[in-house]
């Protein structure tokens, strides 16, 4: 892959949707332990809506339009916590590639960073609060570092995945201070945050899709 076209982005969203679909039981079960058991359901509803909306989109749509369409359809299909977080994330990704006909390696890493930043602006969670930020923030940093090292797109994404996985794993040991699990105190310890888990699923799906392009 050299540059991702808008069509490639659609392929990636499709890959994310498929991955979430395959993973949704596990995600809901993780949410059942410390939350309300719907995270897999919610993510599945969201990406189904995204891919339906993208399917209706004009073939000439640019990357920003793809991201904005994803943002709106995810948000409106989902609500919940994930809706505003991913809605904002995709909106910011769209802004990050504004005016560009394609997404190159640098822009890809920047997209990931913009997404993480958007989520954080929306949800106000810091690292260590046992949320999806514990996957997305390290992932964004790792992608930036890989980019700075001169890694190619796939390597950037692989670095992001590895960081997200470590971050998600680390949520097990955390007390929650944001989201539903924040009232659990000690009882949340030992369980992975479902939002961090789905972040890993998404990043892995992106990586595999980009690798395959």
């Amino acid at each position, binding site marked *: 892959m050299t540059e991702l076209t808008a069509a490639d982005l659609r392929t990636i969203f499709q890959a994310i949707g498929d991955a979430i679909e395959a993973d949704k039981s596990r995600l809901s*079960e993780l949410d*059942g332990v410390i939350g309300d*058991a*719907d995270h897999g359901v919610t993510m599945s509803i969201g990406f189904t809506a995204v891919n339906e909306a993208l399917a209706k989109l004009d073939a000439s749509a640019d990357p920003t339009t793809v991201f904005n369409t994803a943002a709106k359809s995810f948000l409106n299909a989902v609500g919940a916590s994930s*809706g505003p977080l991913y*809605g904002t994330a995709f909106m910011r990704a769209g802004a990050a590639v504004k005016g560009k006909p394609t997404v190159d390696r640098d822009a890809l890493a920047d997209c990931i960073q913009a997404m993480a930043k958007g989520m954080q602006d929306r949800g106000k969670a810091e690292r260590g609060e046992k949320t999806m930020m514990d996957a997305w923030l390290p992932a964004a940093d790792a992608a930036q570092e890989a980019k700075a090292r001169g890694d190619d797109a796939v390597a950037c994404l692989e670095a992001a995945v590895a960081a997200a996985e470590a971050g998600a794993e680390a949520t097990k040991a955390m007390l929650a201070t944001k989201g539903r699990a924040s009232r659990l105190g000690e009882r949340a310890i030992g369980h992975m945050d479902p939002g961090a888990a789905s972040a890993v699923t998404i990043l892995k799906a992106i990586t595999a899709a980009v690798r395959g392009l």
Partner: protein
Amino acid sequence: MKTKKLINDPKVIIEEMLEGIVAAHPKHVRQVEGAPRAVVALNGPRKGKVGLVIGGGSGHEPTFVGFVGKGLADACPIGNVFASPPPDPIYECAKAASGGAGVLFMYGNYAGDVMNFDMAAEMAGMDEIEVRTVLTTDDIASAPLDQKEKRRGVAGNFFIFKIAGAACDTMKPLDECERLARKANAHTYTMGVCLSPCSLPQTQKYSFELGPDEMEIGMGIHGEPGVAKGPIQTADAVTDAIMDKILGEMKPNKGDKVAVLVNSLGATPLMELYLLNRRVKQRLDQVGVSIHQTWVGNYCTSLEMAGASITLLHLDDELTGLLDHPCDCAMFRAG
């Protein structure tokens, strides 16, 4: 093993439920044209009245949509099961509820709801609709007293929305409606227990596990874990545990008045609720607190969860007047 439900395609369950609701209550509610997830009271919104928008995830019926009607809420955005509605239907509700005197957003304090309602408030702001937000935080089991602002909103919503709806219906200005809504929230105390879990229509699996002799104390209304698991106790012991905690915080004086809500989380039948209420009355008698009015039944549910919650609203004359104000909603009437 799949849990048993009378459903069709879970993908359209909310749309179908709304169709059933509007079919049942056509004199009370309608869906906003082009925004079916925004439900509005037929006789609610009017010029000069502060609009009351309440909402949240589905699966708690009659909370929230059942409380839409004259004298209570003007509009209600509908979320997926246990998921905040997205900003669009909330924004549609704000517009539909607006009578030019501002709009009050009221909902349980959950991260997802806060994000979505705040986004909708921004959208309404761009239309020059002044929006104030009052979060409900009545679940005293969900955070310690010194972190009251972190608590969840649960069955006490019923009292808090009722008071706010009466304030709006009596044409009080926005500041006053907001003040009264906050006061109602500050005076409302809820705690619940869960005996067996619910399941989502999409998963048809129990959302969490409870042992055959276990109950969960301080359960959230979405199946979020509570304070602790413990062995099932008698109705009296459960009520005492809840009343100890509520009275300990409420610190009523002899001669004070309360309203009582004994609420089923879904599957717990009236027979059991009335056993709890018996003990509530005994406990209140013991401390010389009188009961202004009692509601017993399914007011804020978690699908088919078994369990119950007890809510006390600590009344003064101002709140009593508003509680007694009549309302006529899709699934609830008073006064």
